[in-house]
């Protein structure tokens, strides 16, 4: 009975959410819509990284690289040939790419699949390389991608990046993908694959002794995580309308890692909340950089103050809220209902 009720509650909640998206897309102003879009992209990134870092326990710093692959691949596919010719004025784009144009959705999917391919390449060495070493290998991978994209001028336009991309990303695309990501990864986590991934996180040798195929499952986590990172990259490229190879650097990865850590490793709910909160927090903090007027005294806006306050908040969160905002607990309808009925909750779900 609980299962059935939860199912319908979820359906209702998701429909209500899409109703909200419909209203938001048509009535909110462009600035808020943009923040909501960024929030959705953060959610996709956070949840996909949580699959690798939180559920499988493989500390990966390669997300920016996967995003870069998705962003470039999809942009090169959905840009019109004229736009490409305008962008590539130093070195022309190589042949097949310069002629192709396809709609947004397949372009995005191909971008995601290419990123997943890269995820396969990164995930495979995972069997031998562990812990901090893995972190540096994945970081190295994303650095290699950045350097390659900076130098392969006839494919990526080098350091000039791609400009004037058409804006396809709207709330439907971004939140549609975000919801799909959440569902997909939630289903994956609750399946036997998910249990294998958690077993690997908790004790690799024990998992292997129980017959979990380490190589297969670790690679699976990387492939799925990278796919969604690629999708998020594609959405981001079309949202901000430019792609700069150097934007996909370690700071971007750190930001996603922070979403995961503050949201709680191994908690999709926490990551979703934190991802959305991060988008709004970063915008709210912009206020500190504009000159302020207190009782006739003007405080000049100091550039960089936003990031300083952000990092101070971050350090406080890390030092005092060690397990993320909600630990590794998950939202469940049962917990939600019993919370409102005032009954004691039935403990952590699914653990």
């Amino acid at each position, binding site marked *: 009975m609980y299962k059935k009720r939860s199912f319908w509650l979820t359906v209702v909640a998701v429909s209500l959410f899409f109703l909200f998206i419909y209203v938001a897309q048509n009535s909110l102003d462009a600035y808020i819509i943009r923040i909501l879009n960024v929030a959705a992209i953060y959610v996709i990134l956070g949840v996909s990284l949580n699959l690798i870092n939180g559920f499988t326990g493989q500390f990966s710093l390669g997300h920016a690289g996967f995003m870069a692959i998705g962003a470039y691949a999809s942009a090169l596919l959905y840009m019109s040939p004229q736009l490409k010719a305008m962008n590539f004025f130093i070195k022309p784009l190589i042949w097949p790419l310069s002629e192709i144009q396809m709609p947004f959705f397949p372009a995005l999917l191909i971008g995601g699949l290419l990123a997943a391919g890269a995820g396969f390449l990164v995930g495979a060495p995972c069997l031998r390389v562990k812990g901090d*070493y893995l*972190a*540096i290998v994945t970081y190295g991978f994303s650095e290699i991608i950045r350097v390659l994209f900076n*130098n392969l001028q006839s494919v990526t336009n080098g350091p000039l990046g791609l400009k004037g991309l058409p804006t396809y990303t709207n709330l439907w695309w971004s939140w549609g993908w975000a919801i799909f990501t959440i569902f997909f990864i939630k289903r994956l986590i609750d399946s036997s694959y998910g249990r294998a991934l958690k077993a690997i996180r908790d004790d690799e040798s024990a998992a292997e002794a129980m017959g979990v195929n380490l190589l297969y499952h670790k690679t699976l986590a990387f492939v799925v995580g990278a796919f969604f990172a690629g999708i998020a990259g594609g959405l981001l490229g079309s949202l901000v309308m430019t792609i700069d190879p150097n934007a996909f650097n370690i700071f971007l990865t750190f930001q996603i890692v922070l979403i995961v*850590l503050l949201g709680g490793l191994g908690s999709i709910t926490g990551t979703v909340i934190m991802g959305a909160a991060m988008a709004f927090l970063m915008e709210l903090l912009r206020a500190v950089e504009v000159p302020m007027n207190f009782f006739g005294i003007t405080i000049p806006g100091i550039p960089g103050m936003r990031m*300083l306050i952000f990092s101070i908040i971050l350090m406080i969160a890390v030092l005092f809220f060690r397990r993320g905002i909600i630990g590794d607990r998950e939202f469940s309808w049962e917990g939600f209902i019993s919370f409102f009925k005032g009954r004691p909750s039935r403990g952590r779900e699914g653990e």
Partner: protein
Amino acid sequence: MTWILFLQHLVNGAALGFVFALVAIGYTLVYGVVKLVNFAHGDIFMMATFFVFYGITLFSFPWWLAFAIAIFLTILLGMGVEKVAYRPLRNAPRISSLCSAIGMSFLLENFAVVVFGGRQKPFYQPEVLIKTITIANVRIQLVSIVTVIVSVGALLFLNYLVYKTKMGLAMRALAHDFDTAKLMGINVDKTISFTFAVGSGLAAISAIFWALRYPQIWPFMGVFPGWRAFTAAIIGGIGSIKGAMIGGFSIGLLTILMVAFMPNMAGYKDAFIFVALVLILLFKPTGLFGEA
């Protein structure tokens, strides 16, 4: 390419190699003792150059005094970072201390942007050090030679510190077995503080030589030397001082030689370093001299 030119590149490469080696040792020492990747190390490196900058411009100290004060302040900074960001998390899961390290690195960078400004600043180059001398047709900047001499001195001193003193013994004991060392009456806080002090001191020395060579300082200047040195430490096997030395030295040398001999591939040099890293880790997952 004549052999004179080759020698010239070799000298430059060696100087840069020693700079990387000193930074890499900072990573490796800390990792060896507390099993923590100190992501803020590159930013401690950056702060050292700003200490020198303000020592000279604000307080108009002579350069040697500014250097000495900067090294001292950097050591204090390193110990402070450990006390604020790492000590409270010593018994927390490793992932929290990693996050704290990342956060500290963010904090130092953004602090530098706000307080020192994001624009690049010129670093003072003492006349004596940037003089060029010619030995057998090889033109060498004096700073390259000084870098090599000071670095070798620092390495010898480090060797003495780690292998001949009581503090070094305590460090090695903690690295070997944290809990047992604690039971043997080793003052953990003091030893770890000391380790950070040594690492930060070496970072300050290398930062000064780095800035003398590339005299532009700005808040994010530590990121790439930091990551490259960290890569060096990993290649050498993190936790091993010898490994960090060899790893750092070869990365410095290879970057210079690659740019010198294959100028059209220069853009790819970071990619090559990381490809080498991935290959080494695939065949020796704990680095060249690391223990399993």
